[in-house]
C-alpha cells in the first residue's frame, strides 16, 4: 500500500488513478445469433472476474482484488486463511427481489461460499393445481412468475392444448405473441429499473417504472387487470382486443424506444456502471448448461439458445427477430442482452400488430370454449356446455405434455400429466428463476461481497417463480 492514511489525522492522499488496471471498463458490442463473432478485443477472456489482468502484479493486483480499496478507516491487519465469517443476507433484504436468503461465508471481503436458501414464498401451487380444473388452472399459474404472467398462462395453455389436440385460431395466436412480447418488455423494464437501483443509479427505478406503466395500462384495458391476468386460456384468449388497441400499441411503440435510448444514455457508457458490472458475476456457457441456466443469463454467456427459434410456438417461426448473444457472461453483458431483447420485442410487437388477422379469438370447440352469451338463450346444448364447463370443467385426454416457452427469465416449462379427468393429475413447473438462483454460488465464488447485489439483480430472479 502506498499512500497509507495519516494515523493522526485520518486523512488520505489523493488516490492514484493510474494504478487502475487497464481494461477495467470498455465499450462492448453484442453479436447476433448466426453471424460471425466480432474480433476479440483481447483484454477480456471468458474467465472474467476470475482472470487476473495481464499486467496485474503487486499493487495493481491488490487493487484488482479489492484490497486496494481505500476507505476512511485505518488499515486492518492480515486476516488468516482460517478466519472466515458467515453472514446471512436476507430474507428481508431490499436487494433480494423478494424473500431470498443468502448464506455467505466471507474471508474478509471475499466470498468463499454461498448457499441460497429459498422457500419463503412457497405456497404449494403445484398441489393447488391438482385441485383446480384445467379451465381454472391459468388463474393459478399466472401468480407464479408475477412479472411475466402471460408466459405462465401461455405455457399452461399450450400444454393443455397439446393434450386436447385443439387448433387455435390465427387471431388468438397473434394476440398471444403480442401480449407475451409486451410482457417481456414490461418485465425487462422492471429489471432495468431494479438493476440500476441496485448498483446505485437510483433514477433508473423511476424511469423503468414510468415506461412500464404504459404497458400495464394497456394490459388493464385488455384483460381487466394489471397483473395476474388469466387472459391466455386453454383454447385461445379470454377476450378480444379492446377498441382502439392499435393506437395504444402505436403509442407504446413510440414511447418505449425513447425510454430505452434514455437508459442507454444513462448506463451503457456510464463509467461507474461499467466498473460495477464488467467482469462481475461471471458464468461460462458450460456452467450454464450444467446448471440449467437459460434465457438472457445464458445468452449473455454466449449460449446461442432461444426457444422461440429452436422450438417455435404460437407461430414464432413466421416472425423476424434476432437473438442477441453476449460473450463475457458478466453482469454488463446481461444488461446489454436484455436491452437488445427489448428492441427485438418491440419489433415483434410491431410485426404482430401489423399482421393481426380477423376472426375469432378462441377455438370454436364448444367442449373447451364456453358458448357466447347470446347462444345460451337460444340453444339447450349451449346452456349445457356452459354449465358443464363452469361446474366440472372439460375433460382432457389421458397423457402427458411438456411445453416450454421463452419467458423473460429463461425456459419456463410446464410438465402436465393428465389422467383423463377435468383436473391435472400432476403439474410440474420448470421455473427458470429456480435454476438461475441455483447458479448463484458459481457466479459469486471468490468475488467481493459488494458484487453480490449487482450479480443477484442481473439474474432477475422472481421469488414467486423460485418458490411456487
Amino acid at each position, binding site marked *: 500500500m502506498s499512500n497509507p492514511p495519516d494515523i493522526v489525522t485520518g486523512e488520505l492522499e489523493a488516490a492514484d488513478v493510474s494504478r487502475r488496471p487497464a481494461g477495467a471498463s470498455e465499450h462492448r458490442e453484442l453479436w447476433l445469433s448466426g453471424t460471425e463473432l466480432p474480433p476479440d478485443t483481447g483484454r477480456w477472456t471468458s474467465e472474467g472476474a476470475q482472470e487476473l489482468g495481464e499486467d496485474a502484479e503487486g499493487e495493481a493486483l491488490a487493487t484488482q482484488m479489492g484490497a486496494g480499496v481505500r476507505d476512511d478507516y485505518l488499515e486492518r491487519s492480515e486476516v488468516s486463511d482460517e478466519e472466515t465469517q458467515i453472514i446471512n443476507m436476507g430474507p428481508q433484504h431490499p436487494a433480494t427481489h423478494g424473500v431470498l436468503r443468502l448464506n455467505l461465508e466471507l474471508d474478509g471481503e471475499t466470498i468463499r461460499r454461498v448457499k441460497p436458501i429459498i*422457500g419463503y414464498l412457497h405456497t404449494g401451487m403445484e398441489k393447488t393445481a391438482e385441485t383446480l380444473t384445467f379451465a381454472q388452472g391459468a388463474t393459478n399459474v399466472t401468480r407464479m412468475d408475477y412479472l411475466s404472467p402471460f408466459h405462465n398462462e401461455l405455457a399452461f395453455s399450450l400444454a393443455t392444448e397439446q393434450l386436447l389436440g385443439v387448433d387455435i385460431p390465427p387471431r388468438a395466436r397473434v394476440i398471444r405473441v403480442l401480449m407475451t412480447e409486451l410482457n417481456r418488455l414490461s418485465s425487462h423494464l422492471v429489471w432495468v429499473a431494479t438493476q440500476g437501483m441496485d448498483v446505485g443509479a437510483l433514477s433508473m427505478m423511476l424511469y423503468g417504472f414510468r415506461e412500464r406503466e404504459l404497458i400495464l395500462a394497456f394490459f388493464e384495458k385488455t384483460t381487466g387487470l394489471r397483473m395476474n391476468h388469466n387472459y391466455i386460456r386453454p383454447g385461445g384468449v379470454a377476450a378480444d382486443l379492446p377498441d382502439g388497441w392499435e393506437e395504444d400499441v402505436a403509442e407504446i411503440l413510440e414511447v418505449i424506444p425513447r425510454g430505452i435510448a434514455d437508459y442507454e444514455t444513462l448506463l451503457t457508457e456510464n463509467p461507474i456502471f461499467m466498473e460495477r458490472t464488467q467482469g462481475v458475476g461471471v458464468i461460462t456457457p458450460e456452467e450454464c448448461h450444467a446448471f440449467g441456466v437459460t434465457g438472457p443469463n445464458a445468452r449473455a454467456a454466449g449460449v446461442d439458445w432461444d426457444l422461440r427459434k*429452436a*422450438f417455435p410456438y404460437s407461430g414464432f417461426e413466421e416472425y423476424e427477430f434476432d437473438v442477441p448473444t453476449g460473450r463475457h457472461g458478466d453482469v454488463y453483458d446481461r444488461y446489454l442482452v436484455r436491452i437488445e431483447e427489448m428492441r427485438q420485442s418491440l419489433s415483434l410487437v410491431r410485426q404482430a400488430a401489423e399482421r393481426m388477422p380477423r376472426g375469432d379469438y378462441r377455438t370454436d370447440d364448444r367442449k373447451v370454449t364456453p358458448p357466447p352469451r347470446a347462444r345460451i338463450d337460444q340453444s339447450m346444448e349451449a346452456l349445457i356446455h356452459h354449465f358443464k364447463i363452469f361446474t366440472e370443467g372439460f375433460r382432457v385426454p389421458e397423457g402427458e405434455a*411438456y411445453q416450454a416457452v421463452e419467458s423473460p427469465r429463461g425456459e419456463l*416449462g410446464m*410438465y402436465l400429466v393428465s389422467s383423463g379427468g377435468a383436473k391435472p393429475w400432476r403439474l*410440474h413447473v*420448470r421455473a427458470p428463476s*429456480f435454476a438461475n438462483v441455483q447458479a448463484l454460488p458459481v457466479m459469486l465464488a471468490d468475488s467481493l461481497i459488494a458484487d453480490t447485489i449487482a450479480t443477484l439483480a442481473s439474474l432477475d430472479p422472481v421469488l414467486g417463480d423460485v418458490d411456487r
Partner: protein
Amino acid sequence: MAPETAPEEQAAAPAPADPVLAGLAEAFPGAVFEEAAGHDVARVGPDDAAGFAAAARDAGYTMFLDLCAVDHLHRRPQRYEVVLNLLDPSRPARLLIKVALDAPDPAMPSMTGVFPGANFYEREAYDLFGVRFEGHPDLTRILLPEEWEGHPLRKDAPVGSVPVQFKEPDER
C-alpha cells in the same frame, strides 16, 4: 380418474430411429425408448439412471433443464416416477428420462455427479415426494420448513385446510 395401472408393454419397443438415441439404446439394452409428451422418452431402471444420464450428456444432451417426480398412486409397485429433462441444443432435441421407483420408500442414485444443476431439483423432489437420492451432497428440505412432516405432493397427502365449524343459529 385413476391413471393406467401399468405402463405400456415394454418388451416390444422398437429401436429408436434417431442415431444418437440408437447409440444410447445399444449401450443400455435395458432402456426402453418411446415417444410421449411430444418428445423422446427413455425409461431406465434406477440403477442405470446416472450412467444413462452421463452417456446422454456425452452424446450431446448437454443441457440439464428439469427433474421432477410424479406420484402415480395406482401403479404398483412402481408408484413413483422421476422425470429428467435434458436438451441437445445442437440439433435441437429434447430427451425425457423416466425412472420408475418403488413405493413406499422411493430411492435412486443422485444425478448431481452428472449434472450439478440437479442439486436443487433433487432436493425439491425429496421435499415434496420423499424420493431419496443416494449420494446427494445435501439432501434436505428446500421449499418447506425443516420441521415439516410428510411429503405434500404425494397423492395421499391431504390438501391442508382449517376446518370451519358451522352450526345452527340459536333460535331463542
